[in-house]
């Protein structure tokens, strides 16, 4: 009997120990579970807060996760997209608007186990067109579209494919910048090649004509060559200015500057062109203009551009007026007015835009780069000044430059 009692006690003790042990295991499991839940929440929070769009699909291509950026970019809420096939709700198109077939989509390539796929708005199409790049566009829920840079990678768990993750962003801005850059390069080459052509062709004629050509004709050719070369120098300087403005490397050296004297110098420099077109000019500088702390070289560029524009866009025997005075706030106010072709109302908003040229002056055949006023405005901003204008087509133009005295 005693023996039985002892055994029973032992069993009860064992049970108690087992219960404690089980409790401990349960407690450990709970901690583990909480840690796992915490880690999962952390992973999801990280994925959700990535600045690019993130979509995760399972092996069947069904969406299992879509972060906030992806939802915003595509116009689909995660509540309506999770569980649906990615290819059903988010079509991809090529540049022309033709749908990209399912098998050629980056996600399909990744799910087919062909490794990670990436492209900066482009993906290299599988052979035979291996080297042809195709820009891809995502189509939003509202059927609008945007170009996207897409990276897709298969998700592997113990070497088994369990899905794929797609990271993408809208590259509309980048593409606009790229386009603007290539347009600028195209324009710059065209502009630079124009005086080069004149130089080449006139010198070719000159070389061919030899001593047989009349001396006056030879002189005329040399003058054309010289003009072409001057034009090249001016263009190169302008392109350098544009490059400095855009790279933010425009050096501003503020020094005491006699602004009326500077404008007088520029007026003198351009006297041959003014006289050549028999343009009358009147200058009205107030005597109380203080010595200004500004960058004389940059201000010279401003004056040169504004005056040469006035000369270029005013017909022969027209009139130009320049003036300088102090405004109510003590700023120097400099005006350039002309009786020239003027700026049509529809072009007012664009004339400080790089490479913009109004149609009316293009029709007159006046040479120009579309860079002058862009440079003027940018340079004045660097000097703490500003520019505005008043103009009507065929009624001339008046530009107002405001410059702080110090």
């Amino acid at each position, binding site marked *: 009997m005693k023996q039985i009692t002892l055994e029973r006690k032992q069993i009860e003790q064992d049970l108690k120990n087992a219960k404690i042990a089980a409790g401990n295991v349960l407690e450990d499991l709970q901690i583990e579970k909480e840690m796992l839940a915490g880690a999962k929440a952390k992973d999801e929070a990280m994925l959700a807060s990535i600045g690019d769009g993130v979509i995760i699909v399972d092996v069947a291509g069904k969406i299992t996760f879509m972060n906030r950026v992806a939802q915003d970019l595509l116009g689909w809420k995660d509540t309506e997209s999770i569980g649906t096939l990615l290819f059903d709700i988010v079509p991809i198109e090529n540049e022309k608007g033709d749908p990209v077939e399912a098998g050629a989509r980056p996600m399909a390539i990744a799910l087919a186990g062909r490794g990670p796929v990436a492209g900066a708005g482009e993906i290299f199409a599988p052979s035979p067109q291996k080297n042809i790049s195709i820009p891809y566009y995502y189509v939003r829920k509202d059927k609008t579209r945007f170009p996207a840079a897409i990276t897709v990678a298969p998700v592997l768990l113990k070497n088994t494919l369990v899905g794929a993750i797609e990271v993408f962003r809208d590259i509309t801005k980048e593409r606009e910048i790229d386009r603007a850059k290539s347009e600028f*390069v*195209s324009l710059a*080459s*065209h502009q630079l*090649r*124009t005086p*080069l*052509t*004149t130089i*080449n*062709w*006139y010198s*070719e*004629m000159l070389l061919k004509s030899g001593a047989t050509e009349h001396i006056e004709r030879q002189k005329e050719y040399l003058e*054309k060559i010289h003009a072409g070369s001057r034009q090249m120098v001016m263009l190169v300087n302008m392109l350098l200015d544009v490059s400095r403005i855009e790279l933010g490397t425009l050096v501003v050296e503020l020094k005491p500057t006699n602004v009326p004297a500077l404008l007088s110098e520029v007026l003198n420099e351009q006297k041959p062109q003014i006289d050549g077109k028999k343009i009358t000019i009147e200058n009205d500088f107030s005597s109380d203009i203080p010595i200004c702390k500004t960058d004389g070289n940059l201000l010279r560029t401003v004056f040169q551009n504004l005056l040469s524009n006035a000369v270029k866009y005013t017909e022969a025997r027209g009139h130009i007026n320049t003036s300088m005075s102090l405004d109510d706030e003590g700023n120097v106010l400099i005006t350039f007015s002309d009786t020239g072709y003027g700026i049509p109302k529809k072009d007012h908003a664009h004339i400080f835009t790089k490479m913009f040229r109004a*149609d009316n002056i*293009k*029709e007159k*055949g006046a040479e120009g780069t579309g860079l002058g006023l862009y440079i003027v405005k940018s340079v004045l901003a660097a000097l703490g000044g500003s520019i505005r204008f008043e103009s009507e087509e065929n009624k001339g133009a008046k530009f107002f430059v405001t410059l702080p005295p110090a």
Partner: protein
Amino acid sequence: MEKKILIVEDDLDMLTLLKTAFTGAGFSVLTCKNGTEALQLVQSGRPDLVTLDLVLIGMDGMTVLKEIRKHGIRVPVIILTNLPADQEIMEGVVRDEPSYYMVKSGSPIEDIVAKAKTTLGI
């Protein structure tokens, strides 16, 4: 038989130089400075060859070329421009043949005249 060439060029200096060179080489020369006029002259003047600038006021050169072909006119066209050969230009050269592309600054006038002559089989 004297061959007739139409020079479409909006730069006065270049136009004068090309005209002088082609006249000197025995061509009869028509000239104009814009796209709309070019299209009219191609139809009314029936030139044997056209040199076509691309940057023109109003209708640009590529549009002129397309329009010429749309009217079923097969006159050889030498695109004579300082624009770099972008995709649009190269596609136009292939699609709207017979047409050729020459960069003004890289081509002596002599070469342009020579190209016109070979194209016409002179």
